[in-house]
């Protein structure tokens, strides 16, 4: 197979923080060479990128695929197609399925389903505690052997600090990464909005943004105790950032992510109780959103993920308090992120550092970069092409996107996984 040379490409290099017009050569699924200017002559198949952007494919930590349990919401097949169409070349799946992925056997089921149906890389995560109930840790060692790349109870906070500290201690011995949802669980219980003028006006049960800081503070203290490797799934408030900054400065093994929705939407977007805008944690104030963008720019927040959470119409067509949380985002992650680029707030290398390089590094993967020897997981996109999003055009089985009907700019032209084209825009 497969020697390809991409020519006339705007190469987005998140490692160097640069972008330049050049060429990139792929052989046997790996990047073998790249450079500026015109490509050297070779016998390989050439793809003329026409000046479009060629970036390392997105590594998305925290994608919910609803197998097992709710395949009508999203299957491995539909999630794979959506990911490919969105330029996501690696999905790191969440274990908050029904039942939870908390045994090596259920993890093997997931791996088998993923291999059969999905054109992109699938790396499964496993639950940190059995049933995500926060009482007993899972078989972290066995699950690692079965392929779990990280351990998380997703949006369930392990409220019992003793259980959590033991799980962190044990995970450290296994060299396992723990991903947690920093939130004070009792304070945030039942909340559907962030406390503030908007929540008061709409009469919604709300949580103070401080609950995130409190959750993060506890987890940081436990990291000092245990020395575990820890990733906060979503840091969404300005108040949590100084604590994160201090923890990093003190040399703890901590990284943090945020969701694309918290970077591109704020609480006012909920407007008249639009349940597609109900996510967890709830959308924040505009000040928090701006602080999040700045933290991504400086690198304090390491990763941006889609937090892809499919929900069917029935779960969303309910009064706001009762409606399910979450939004699909595999296909809108890149165009939404490009809003920050077009707004002049983040440049493309910074965006791909947060969407590709940092998540790959955190999981110990060699992908997420444009360098010799890295897997040829690539996304080719035109950052400028405008369109109006129609949610029924999405490849996900669920269409609960907050961006329905919105103007966006930037579309994926083609996606490659290990040098193979897995998507091309018709």
């Amino acid at each position, binding site marked *: 197979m497969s020697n390809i040379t991409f020519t006339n490409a705007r190469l987005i290099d998140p490692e160097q923080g640069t972008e330049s017009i050049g060429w990139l050569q792929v052989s046997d699924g790996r990047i073998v060479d790249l450079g500026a200017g015109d490509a050297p002559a070779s016998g390989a198949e050439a793809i003329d990128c026409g000046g479009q952007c060629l970036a390392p494919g997105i590594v998305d930590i925290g994608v919910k695929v609803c197998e097992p349990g709710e395949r009508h919401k999203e299957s491995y097949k539909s999630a794979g197609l959506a990911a490919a169409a969105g330029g996501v070349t690696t999905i790191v799946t969440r274990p908050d399925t029904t039942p939870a992925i908390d045994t090596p056997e259920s993890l093997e089921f997931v791996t088998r389903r993923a291999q059969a149906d999905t054109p992109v890389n699938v790396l499964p995560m496993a639950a940190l505690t059995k049933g995500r109930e926060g009482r007993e840790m899972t078989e972290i060692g066995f699950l690692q052997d079965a392929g779990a790349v990280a351990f998380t109870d997703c949006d369930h906070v392990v409220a019992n600090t003793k259980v959590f500290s033991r799980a962190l201690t044990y995970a450290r011995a296994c060299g396992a990464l723990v991903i947690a949802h920093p939130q004070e669980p009792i304070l945030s219980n039942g909340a559907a909005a962030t406390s503030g*003028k908007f929540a*008061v006006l709409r009469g*919604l*049960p709300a949580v103070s943004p401080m609950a995130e800081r409190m959750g993060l503070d506890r987890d940081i203290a436990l990291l000092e105790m245990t020395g575990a490797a820890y990733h906060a799934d979503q840091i969404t408030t300005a108040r949590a950032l100084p604590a994160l900054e201090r923890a990093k400065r003190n040399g703890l093994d901590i990284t943090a992510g945020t969701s694309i929705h918290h970077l591109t939407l704020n609480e006012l977007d909920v407007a008249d109780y639009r349940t597609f805008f109900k996510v967890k944690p709830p959308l924040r104030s505009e000040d928090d959103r701006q602080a999040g963008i700045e933290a991504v720019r400086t690198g304090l927040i390491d990763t941006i993920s889609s937090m892809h959470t499919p929900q069917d119409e*029935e779960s969303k*067509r309910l*009064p*706001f*308090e009762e409606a399910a949380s979450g939004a699909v985002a595999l296909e809108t992650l890149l165009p939404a992120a490009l809003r920050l680029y077009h707004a002049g707030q983040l440049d493309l290398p910074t965006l791909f550092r947060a969407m590709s390089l940092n998540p790959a590094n955190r999981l110990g993967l060699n992908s997420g970069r444009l360098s010799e020897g890295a897997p040829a997981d690539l996304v080719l996109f035109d950052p400028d092409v405008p369109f109006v999003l129609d949610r029924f055009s999405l490849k996900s089985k669920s269409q609960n996107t907050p961006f329905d009907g919105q103007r966006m700019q930037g579309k994926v032209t083609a996606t490659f996984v290990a040098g193979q084209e897995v998507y091309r825009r018709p």
Partner: protein
Amino acid sequence: MRFAHRHLLGIEHLSQSDITAILDLAEKYVDMNRQSTKHSDVLSGLTQINMFFENSTRTQASFEIAGKRLGADVMNMAMQASSIKKGETLIDTAMTLNAMHPDLLVVRHPHSGAVDLLAQKVNCAVLNAGDGKHEHPTQALLDALTIRRAKGRLHRLNIAICGDVAHSRVARSNLILLGKMENRIRLIGPPTLVPGQFAEFGAEIYDDMNEGLKDVDVVMMLRLQKERMDGGFIPSEREYYHRYGLDGAKLAQAKPDAIVMHPGPMNRGVEIDGTLADDINRSVIQEQVEMGVAVRMAAMDLLARNLSEAA
């Protein structure tokens, strides 16, 4: 008079002139309701369904009388005892009722925003009779009418709203309405029940009731909504009464002609002194109930005029 709204979902969407129009029409119905023959046929031939997903005696009765006096065919549905228990969703219930071609749907629901959601799915006019902690527009309108009749105006008054503001849709609707009509509003209560965010609506917040009541024209008491509280917001009812219950001594801080209001039902001895509530020189609580019927008649009348135009 043309009322430029299809539904009455909240005060938020109304303009000053919308509010005045409803109140002016309600005045006419107050007069009508005081005659021995209290009947009109402006809603004759129309069907009004009262859907209450939450217990209510007073509001439901008020809407029922209002509809009947205007000649509508009124049906009450106690939704708590009905299909909701069988697992039907709100939207399915709405679609089912919609197929019966009602003209006016009066809805109360325990969740904020539920009435807005329902209104998107039906063809008739929807009146919000209270949704969660969001809005209760007819209550705010009847309070406004009561104040206007007692004080002769509905602007440039000092109005204190006291008690459980956090859990109260009545407080939110009143805050919005009285703000739109350019009054000064004070919110009085313990900080657990009067969150600081309310200051962003331009209200002044007091946790000392004696200070807060100084020189106000209107004292609006709220019911302590024990059923909406999921934890300790106050240490005890007796301490609450001592600090925030309205009695003669605290009322003495207000203007001598200040009126006392309460949306009902009252917890005597918890938020208001029983004798004070019955004092016909100060309390307009009974008048509020009377205005409630008239305001609801006016609101349904205005919405129904749009229906006949559309037909």
